[in-house]
């Protein structure tokens, strides 16, 4: 039963990706093209503004944008978790995790299409590759574990309170600027910036994936924060799910 459900979730997620690009020969690589144009433009403008050499700024920015798009895409889709699948929810009994895996898988497939930019960029700029990069994979897994509880909790709450979808959108816009996606904390070490980087969950997620890719080790504090968030978050999500998952269909 569990195996069938996971297969179903992966299939639905895959169909979602295909659906968006069905009659386009380039398909999901459109996102890759858009992202690379964005990164090149922003890299040019902000590289000039911040006076950072491209060779170090472009990889930083590219990874920042890619990981941010992955995270923010999942969170903004989360408020639509059940609303977007209303006809399914109203007709068949499926466990919540089917919808969650479907969403995560869809976002991950798009992310994989985008991530091919990184080796290309690293080759062009001749950024040295090293083994720390593998740690980025571990970081990504921890980030996805955290996104999981956010999707469960937000998906359920946003079905009942429809304003959450708008709220999430503005929240994410604000955090795009509050998080070191395109700006770098180095040389800006005021107490405010420190606060933004230390206590901002998005900054923590970003650091776990991006830092190893750039050959740096995320601090122990960052790892522990993410683990604690995952534990507390999943406890909360489990509570919400146990209590309200069966009500979701009535809220659609």
């Amino acid at each position: 039963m569990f195996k069938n459900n996971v297969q179903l979730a992966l299939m639905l997620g895959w169909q979602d990706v295909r659906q968006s690009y069905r009659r386009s020969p380039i398909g999901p690589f459109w996102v890759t093209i858009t992202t690379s144009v964005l990164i090149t433009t922003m890299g040019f403008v902000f590289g000039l503004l911040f006076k950072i050499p491209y060779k170090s700024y472009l990889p930083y920015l590219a990874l920042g944008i890619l990981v941010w798009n992955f995270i923010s895409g999942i969170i903004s889709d989360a408020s639509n978790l059940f609303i977007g699948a209303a006809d399914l929810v109203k007709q068949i009994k499926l466990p919540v995790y089917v919808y969650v895996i479907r969403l995560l898988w869809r976002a991950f497939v798009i992310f994989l299409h985008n991530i091919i930019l990184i080796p290309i960029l690293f080759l062009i700029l001749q950024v040295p590759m090293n083994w720390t990069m593998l740690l980025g994979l571990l970081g990504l897994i921890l980030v996805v574990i955290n996104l999981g509880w956010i999707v469960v909790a937000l998906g359920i709450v946003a079905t009942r309170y429809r304003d959450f979808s708008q709220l999430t959108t503005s929240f994410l816009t604000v955090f795009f600027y509050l998080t070191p996606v395109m700006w770098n904390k180095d040389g800006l070490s005021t107490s405010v910036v420190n606060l933004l980087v230390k206590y901002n969950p998005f900054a923590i997620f970003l650091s776990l994936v991006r830092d190893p890719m750039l050959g740096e080790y995320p601090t122990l504090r960052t790892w522990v924060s993410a683990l604690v968030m995952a534990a507390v978050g999943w406890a909360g999500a489990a509570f919400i799910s146990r209590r309200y998952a069966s009500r979701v269909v009535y809220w659609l």
Partner: protein
Amino acid sequence: MVHVNLTNLTVDVPVYNTKSRFLTAALMDVATGGRLNAAKDGHVQVRALDDISLEVSDGERVGILGHNGAGKSTLLRVLGQVYAPSAGKASIRGKVGSLIDISLGINPEATGLENIFIRGQLLGLSKATIKRKLDDIIAFSELGNFINLPVRTYSTGMHMRLAFAVATEIRPEILLMDEWLSVGDEEFKHKAEARLRGLVDGANIMFLASHSRDMIEKTCTRVIVLEHGRIVHDGLPSEILPIYFGS
């Protein structure tokens, strides 16, 4: 042991977009289908099922009668474990399969073949099972090479044949149906009827919501009549049908 037992089951469906007190009051005066009432927080609530007690054992074929809005679909959703009861208990033992919306999840942009997998997996079949039965399904649907074209290019009949061929691959212990399925032209109808009969005969318990006296007479061993979310009659078809349909 396949068994369905509903005890004092009530289902209240909240309506969240009607918040005004005035509207609440106004709506309660014109109650037609389910009974309207106000929840604690002032939202309008439709009592779709009201204090239903029903015990169904292995072998029974239950016909559900009632006017539009009487609660037939809600009852089927409770039996399909989509709706959790607001009050009371629903104990449903057995694998439930539904033929209520056989087109659910069909993606018009995807090919017939892809849709076989989409539909099959939504029905709870494993990928391996679908692969094994793939040739059967395609042959039964009589779609030939059309199976590799997007479903949006299909005629309504072809669409229904595909949906029917996949949906009838399930082998549930408790079968739910909203009106008897009948698809295709005369020739196909015959074939479909035989296949559906096989599925119905294989199920331990069947629920059929219908407006057709004929169909219920032919298929069911027991009939319940719903009115405003309550069971008003429950008995043998020979007793209940004359009361409900008159003579």
